[in-house]
């Protein structure tokens, strides 16, 4: 290549580059509610990220197709790929926050790391962050975390629900029992430890901790220790991605009974158990939503989207998988928050500040869930200024080799007992470090 050619190409690349770096304006539609989606359809966690993104995206499309949007305001949908990477997530946020006529309604980062990175930015920009079942547990304390929502349940509430389940299975007495926590050695995996330790003091069980370094492919020694030396009565797992299937296989290899092995909600989907094959039968998982395939919402997806070739999933059979359903639940809560805001402020595109009001006044009653065709998938929720968790419930489900089956009734986490205090204490520590004054919620 001659030098002149190189120069020309470099100049051209520079010009194209300068243009391409600028954020693209969201689909130029005059009137619509801009609902950006952060997705991870690539990268190491893509098997989990794809059904999540499909469920959320399909529900938003369903509202557009079936009802013409939220209260008649069409939804403008845009995806941004984060690859579960914090820097990319921040880039997506900055790119999309001013999209549409009124800016982003809310963000669901689907990653604890991105959530942490966005809390301050979003609070300053007045855009709600909806971290459903991940992120900061203490963000449930709305007096400090004004723009962060954790409904329907946090990791701390989940850990409490798991212990409640184990206690019921053990006949109401945990003293002297041994419980092991196998966790992803990261901010995410460490979340339940404080709660489990607190409960250990209260209930009298012995807790042993087994950190698994990222990505979790090497767990032989961990499980040999669990299976041969510690021999716990129950194992709880806070795992993610490829770590889950590895753990199930290793647990089976040391003969640990699957009925006494409970994964949390990021360790309890089809991609986690299917690769482990037969050995995964009986494995339990904690969920903050139910398992269901053929509710009205699923039927509507099939008739309105998949019959016309508009669905996001490759195959109709993926509608109703655990993570797909979680995507639906995420979209339901965020769109209902927007609807609540519209009922108050008028049927026009809402700003982030108005959606924040919508979240805080969101009341998803059993009747409302029935009308949305979601009975059995979600428990009722009611959020407020001080409580950003909304009193969601959790349940244990079990894998039978083909499908997930409910293995317990809905469990109410013991928020009044100690969780609310723990949220407040932790949130106040954050407020002190940041020099924030908690707002008044009366």
């Amino acid at each position: 290549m001659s030098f002149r050619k190189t120069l020309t190409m470099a100049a051209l690349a520079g010009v194209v580059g300068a243009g391409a770096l600028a954020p693209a304006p969201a689909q130029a539609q005059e009137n619509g509610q801009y609902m950006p989606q952060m997705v991870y359809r690539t990268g190491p966690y893509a098997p989990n990220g794809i059904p999540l993104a499909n469920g959320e995206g399909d529900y938003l499309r369903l509202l557009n197709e079936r009802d013409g949007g939220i209260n008649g305001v069409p939804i403008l949908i845009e995806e941004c790929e984060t690859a579960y990477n914090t820097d990319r997530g921040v880039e997506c946020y900055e790119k999309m926050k001013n999209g549409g006529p009124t800016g982003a309604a809310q963000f669901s980062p689907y990653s604890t790391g991105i959530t942490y990175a966005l809390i301050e930015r979003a609070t300053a920009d007045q855009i709600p962050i909806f971290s459903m079942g991940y992120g900061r547990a203490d963000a449930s304390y709305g007096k400090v975390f004004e723009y962060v929502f954790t409904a329907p349940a946090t990791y701390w509430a989940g850990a409490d629900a798991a212990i409640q389940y184990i206690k019921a299975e053990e006949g109401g007495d945990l003293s002297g029992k041994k419980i092991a926590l196998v966790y992803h050695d990261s901010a995410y995996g460490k979340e339940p430890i404080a709660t489990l330790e607190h409960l250990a003091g209260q209930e009298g069980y012995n807790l042993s901790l087994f950190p698994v370094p990222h990505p979790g492919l090497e767990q032989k020694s961990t499980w040999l220790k669990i299976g041969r030396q510690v021999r716990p009565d129950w194992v709880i797992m806070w795992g993610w991605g490829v770590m889950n299937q590895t753990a199930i296989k290793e647990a089976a290899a040391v003969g640990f009974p699957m009925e006494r092995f409970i994964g949390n909600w990021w360790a309890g989907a089809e991609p986690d158990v299917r690769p482990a094959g037969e050995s995964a039968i009986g494995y339990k998982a904690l969920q903050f939503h139910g398992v269901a395939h053929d509710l009205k919402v699923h039927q509507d997806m099939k008739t309105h989207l998949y019959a016309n070739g508009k669905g996001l999933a490759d195959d109709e059979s993926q509608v109703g998988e655990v993570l797909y359903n979680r995507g639906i639940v995420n979209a339901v809560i965020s769109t209902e928050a927007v609807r609540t805001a519209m009922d108050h402020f008028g049927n026009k595109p809402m700003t982030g500040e108005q959606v924040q009001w919508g979240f805080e006044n969101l009341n998803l009653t059993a009747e409302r869930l029935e009308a949305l065709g979601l009975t059995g998938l979600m428990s009722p929720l009611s959020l407020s200024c001080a409580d950003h968790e909304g009193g969601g419930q959790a349940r244990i489900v079990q894998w039978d080799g083909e499908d997930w089956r409910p293995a317990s009734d809905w469990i109410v986490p013991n928020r009044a007992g100690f969780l609310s205090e723990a949220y407040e204490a932790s949130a106040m520590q954050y407020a002190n470090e940041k020099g924030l004054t908690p707002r008044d919620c009366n």
Partner: protein
Amino acid sequence: MIYREAGQFKTSYARDGGLYPIRQDRYGLIVLLLVAVFAVPMMSEYWLVTIFLPFLVMAVAALGLNILTGYAGQLSLGTGGFMACGAYAAYKLATAFPDLNIVLVFLGAGLVSALVGILFGIPSLRIKGFYLAVATLAAQFFILWLLNKVPWFVNYSPSGVISAPPRAIFGDIYVTGATATPEAKYLFALAVAALLALAAKNLTRCAIGRSWMAIRDMDIAAEIIGIKPMATKLGAFAISSFYCGIAGAMWAFIYTSSVEANAFEISRSFQVLFMVIIGGLGSILGSFLGAAFIVLLPILLKNAPEMVGLSIPVDVIAHIEFMIFGALIIFFLIVEPHGLARLWQIGKEKLRLWPFPY
């Protein structure tokens, strides 16, 4: 013709030894700095926060590694660890002494990282090349493990995530935290990066830098002519880690404003190493070019299809982006193994002769 220095007479030794002996370079740099200080902050928040901030932060990290690997010839894979060290040291300093100015916090973070760097540089006295790379890998894993393990480093936060407290540089001009404007953050990062780059440029031209290069080119010969290998190598480790520590503190305080140790895992070290290799080993400019290439190109590739009006699903874009990015790295390394900085140098030579090449 454009770069011809005919007619530029150097009438004193000081001018002959100046940083930028050619007038075009000097004016070019001044124009660049003026643009960076006055024009860039006019751009949108998106540009400042997601393009210029990570670029400046990673450029400082690349400067640090370039001092160690490019100038002193000590291959290191511990950059991520040293960055983490700086980020956590800055956090501990800022929370323990709330009244400490942010500049002092950053300097303190750099010094702590420098000490840790010296510690992990000790093996370099005995081993070199790939073996040293493996030894510095130990720093990478050990530091992250320690930060994950000991809750004191994160002020006993249950999740192990640190988040930067708001701090002002003077008066009420906040450069970290939620109230800091993107412009203030950018200008602060720019000032830090520019000062550190100037310092690095001067370091490499003085006795210290020359002894680094002597050690790099042949350590036995260097020792024979009187350069102390221990002081030189450990000095390189200290200064390199100082830079990396400040980059880590900038990452945690200015860019993402909250960070967990995993943000500095091994892939970060490789990222910085690629910047140095692609930008040019042993070149200050190369550190910036490499950082620009590695940080900005993926963002460009990601947004390019949208700009030309193609609507491609995001996952397909992500896959294409990886393919193009990989191909470009290989292309540049084949076309110019000495990095982008060398490409620029060749360009300057050509421009000097243009339009009458021989």
